[in-house]
Structure formats: structure tokens, C-alpha cells
């Protein structure tokens, strides 16, 4: 087992950041800790790294009880949201830091630094200072620095949170490809469900200091364990008393066995996709997502009446 967290609780004053959290993260996996801000996911990551100590519970890394080990002895790589670059050192010295601390021979350090800078495409920036790099480059440098001493696990705390949308998307794909090459057990914290779904093999949804659900992205999306998970992972609307995905709803002119009568309020075209806003007989709003072709075929107009039901299968 890569990382095992057992019954971990952590309080800051009267605020319970984590309550009885247990998670298993398999060796070599890429796992996302997903949840809203202040939900405890960063605290869990920092407890795994040894930067915070849990009030209760235990942490194992590669089968070794690490609960009372200082961060220096856990052999983890940690990447911070705001890079935490050593500003007075060149890019190469930043990456070499962990190796120099471990007193590796100079030639080995130089070779490994070069190898990593090539891996993160910063080969030509070796002699620059962090201040001379863009945000995305700094974060890649921080990643190379964390990977240099060959950690057992790589931990990333909102690694793309401080970057703009374009760079963020690039780095996301790049992290996925990097993980496929390097295979180090990786855990990253994010509040962006799209990022988690796109990059991770496994998602741990954390809210109010508790684990809501653990599973592969598809499973979480299709079989959410709670309304919270369902709402957090994708678009939802309400049909009668139940939460449903708006793309799972169908409109027809036949009432059928379970059709809910509703009147179209508005039709919004978003390129390929069409969003239909409706009001049901009790005055509640709901919306249906369909393709443009489907909307044209049914010729949906504001004011028209329909029966709404969930698509079976």
C-alpha cells in the first residue's frame, strides 16, 4: 500500500479540520483529494507530509508507520501552491537542493539535475533565478525539485491554483503524462472537479473534514454516494424530489407512467449544446441539457408544454 491513513482527526482551536478520516492510496496511483475550500483536504495532505501532526490516528507510507516522523525522514516530495522556490538560488541549485542535503556525489547531482530539468522542459533555464521564470515554469521547477531525491510519494497542494486558465490546462495534461512516465505514488489537492476528473485515477471527495466518497472518476460521477458528491462533481437539477443530471433528462409529448409536466421558460444555445429551462406544475425550476440536433428535432419553443422524465439506461 502506498499511503494508508487511519482514523485521522485534527482540530485547530475549536474548528475540526478533519474528523476520523481513513484513506488508502495504492502504490503508483495518481489520486486527487477533491473538495470545497476549507474542507480539510490540504490539512490531510500536510499531515501525510508531516507538516502538520494529527491529534488522533496514524499515517503509513510504504508500509512504514510515519505518524511521528518529522517531514525530513518521510521521503516525500511536496509541491506548494505558490511554488516556495528558493529565491536566492538558480533553477539548477533549487533542483539540486535535496540531493546536496543527502550528500550525493557532485557528478551524480549534476547528471540528475540535468535529467530532471530536461524532463520538465527547463533545460535552457538552469542558470536563471526563479524571479526570471513565469508561474508555470516556476511550478515545473518546484516539481523537478520535489522529484530529484526520488521520493516514495509526491504530494501537490493545489499545484495549479495560482496559474491562469490556459497554463493550468497545459500543466494538467503534462502532470498526467509525467505520472505515466515516472509512476511515483502521487496525491494532489484540488477544488476543481474538472481537474480531478481529467487527471486522477482515483478521487477522494472531502467535505467538512470527512471523506464523502472514494472511487474512480466515472464511478463517482455515475454512482455518487451523496447529494453533496453529486452536486460537486457535475451539473445537477431537481426533478420532483430527486437530484438528477440534466443530460439524463428527456422531453416528450406523452405523459407516460412517470412524466412530470413542465412549461419551457427559455432556450439557451451554447454552441453544440442546448440548455432548456422549465417550470414544473408546482412552480419549481429545472433544466434539461440536450444536443442542438435533439432540440431542433423536437422544435422546443418558450411557452410550450412537455413531460420530463429520466432516460432509462
Amino acid at each position: 500500500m502506498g499511503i494508508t491513513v487511519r482514523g485521522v482527526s485534527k482540530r485547530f482551536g475549536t474548528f475540526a479540520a478533519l474528523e476520523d478520516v481513513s484513506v488508502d492510496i495504492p502504490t503508483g496511483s495518481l489520486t486527487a483529494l477533491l473538495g470545497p475550500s476549507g474542507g480539510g483536504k490540504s490539512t490531510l495532505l500536510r499531515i501525510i507530509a508531516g507538516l502538520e501532526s494529527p491529534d488522533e490516528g496514524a499515517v503509513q507510507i510504504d508500509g512504514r508507520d510515519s505518524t511521528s516522523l518529522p517531514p525530513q525522514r518521510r521521503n516525500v516530495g511536496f509541491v506548494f501552491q505558490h511554488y516556495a522556490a528558493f529565491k536566492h538560488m538558480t533553477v539548477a541549485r533549487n533542483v539540486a537542493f535535496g540531493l546536496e542535503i543527502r550528500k550525493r556525489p557532485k557528478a551524480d547531482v549534476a547528471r540528475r539535475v540535468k535529467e530532471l530539468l530536461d524532463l520538465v522542459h527547463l533545460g535552457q533555464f538552469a542558470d536563471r533565478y526563479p524571479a526570471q521564470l513565469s508561474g508555470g515554469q516556476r511550478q515545473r521547477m518546484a516539481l523537478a525539485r520535489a522529484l530529484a531525491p526520488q521520493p516514495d510519494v509526491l504530494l501537490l497542494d493545489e499545484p495549479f491554483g495560482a496559474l491562469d486558465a490556459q497554463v493550468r490546462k497545459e500543466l494538467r495534461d503534462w502532470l498526467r503524462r509525467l505520472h505515466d512516465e515516472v509512476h511515483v505514488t502521487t496525491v494532489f489537492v484540488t477544488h476543481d472537479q474538472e481537474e480531478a476528473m481529467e487527471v486522477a485515477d482515483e478521487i477522494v471527495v472531502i467535505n467538512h473534514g470527512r471523506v464523502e466518497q472514494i472511487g474512480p472518476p466515472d464511478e463517482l460521477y455515475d454512482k455518487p454516494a451523496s447529494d453533496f458528491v453529486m452536486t460537486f462533481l457535475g451539473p445537477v437539477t431537481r426533478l420532483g424530489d430527486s437530484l438528477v443530471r440534466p443530460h439524463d433528462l428527456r422531453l416528450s409529448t406523452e405523459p407516460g407512467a412517470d412524466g412530470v409536466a413542465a412549461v419551457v421558460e427559455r432556450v439557451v444555445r451554447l454552441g453544440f449544446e442546448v440548455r432548456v429551462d422549465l417550470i414544473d406544475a408546482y412552480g419549481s425550476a429545472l433544466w434539461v441539457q440536450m444536443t442542438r440536433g435533439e432540440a431542433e428535432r423536437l422544435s422546443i419553443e418558450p411557452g410550450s408544454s412537455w413531460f420530463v422524465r429520466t432516460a432509462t439506461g
Partner: protein
Amino acid sequence: MLLRGVALAYVLLLLALPVGLVAWRTFEHGAAPVWRALSSHAARHALAITAEVATAAVILNTVFGVGLALLLVRRRFPGRGLLDAVTDLPLAVSPVVVGLALILVYGHNTGLGGWLAGRGISIIFALPGMVLATVFVSLPLVVREVTPVLEEIGIEQEQAAWTLGASPGQTFRRVTLPAIRWALAYGVVLTLARGLGEYGAVAVVSGRIVGKTQTATLFVEERYQNFDQPAAYAMAFALAATAVVILLCINLLRHQAGD
């Protein structure tokens, strides 16, 4: 325009004129008498004492100033607010009061002072007391330079160093110290300037024993009172010239820190 005139006149009357007059009176009869006055036994001894006290104060203040700044910025503990406030106390209290307070604690008639004297250690009317007094008055200079820089750089670089395997000592040497080096250098230079120029607190605790505990500033006052004005002016000029050099250093460091 008016403001500039007023500011100029102010600086001229308060600073340039008196310092200029000291320089002029010093070299009234050429450089030879100045050299003679400064190379007398008492003058050389006073300069040596000043150098010793200032150096000791700089070393102590560097170590404890950085330690105190780290404690105030990186730790949360009960009494932290009080410690923070007390750090500024030496700026508010008159140095004479500092001197008297030290005598009350370490004087030969007090419990602690008597106990130490019984073991052959004198604090008051000796170098240790003068160093203590100088450290006391210059305590905030290093702390207040280093604290804002520590706050600005934050703790993440240090935490990154820990996860990369660096011990607290290695982290301090390789990450924290390089980040605060210009602020620390600035604080050290300010401490040095204060240490060389301190008069009030040192005057009280030193006992002003000529040839023993007399510093350069005390020498100026004593010579002046004894109508040996050439010696007083020569030493005053030496102190002023040192101050100018220190000011230049400070400006240079400020420039470096701004990079």
C-alpha cells in the same frame, strides 16, 4: 520652494553647521596635533574599549536578534504579544534609566551582583556591564530589521527545505539566512553605530574610570570638562567620521536589499 528652504536651513543649523565646526576646530592647527591627541595612551585605550564593547554588542545582538525575530514570527506561544511589545522598550526608555536599572540588578550591593562579585565576576563598573547596557539599548535594531523580512518570505520555503530532507540547522543556513542577509547586515550596521556612539547607559554603568572603563564618547566629555579641547575635538571628529562611513555602508546595504 519655501518648504525646501526651511528644510535646508533646518538641516544646516542642526546638523551640517555643528558637525562642520567640529571638523574645522579639529584641524584648526593642522593634522599633527589631531594625530598626537588620538595617539595618547588614554585616547587609544578609550578607542580600544569602545571597539571591544561595540563588537561584543554586535555579536550578542546578531545571535539574539535573529533568534528573537524567528521566535516572534515563526512561533505562537502565550506571552508572545508581551515579548513583542517589550522588544521595543529600549527605544522608549532613556538610556540613563537603562543604566540605573542594570545597577539595581547587578550592582555590588544587590543579591545577584554580590553573588557574582563573590565569584570574582564584576558586571557594574566593568566591561560586562557596558556590553549589557549597549546590548540593551540596541536590542530592537536587529529584531526590527529582520522581523518584516521573515514575515514577507513566509514559512513555505523553509517547509519545502524540510520535505527535501534539510534539518532545522541546514534549513536556517541554506534557506532562511540567505533570505534575511541584507536585513541582518543592515541591523548589524545600525547596532555597530549605536554601540560606538552610546553614551548615557554606558556612562552610568561604567563608572567612567579613566584608562579602565572610559569609552570614546566618555573620553570626549571628560577631556572637554578638563579644558583639553583639542583632544575632545579630535575624538569627536573620529567618532563623526566613523559615523559617516557607517552611513555610507547603510546606504549601500539599503541599495543591495532593494535589488
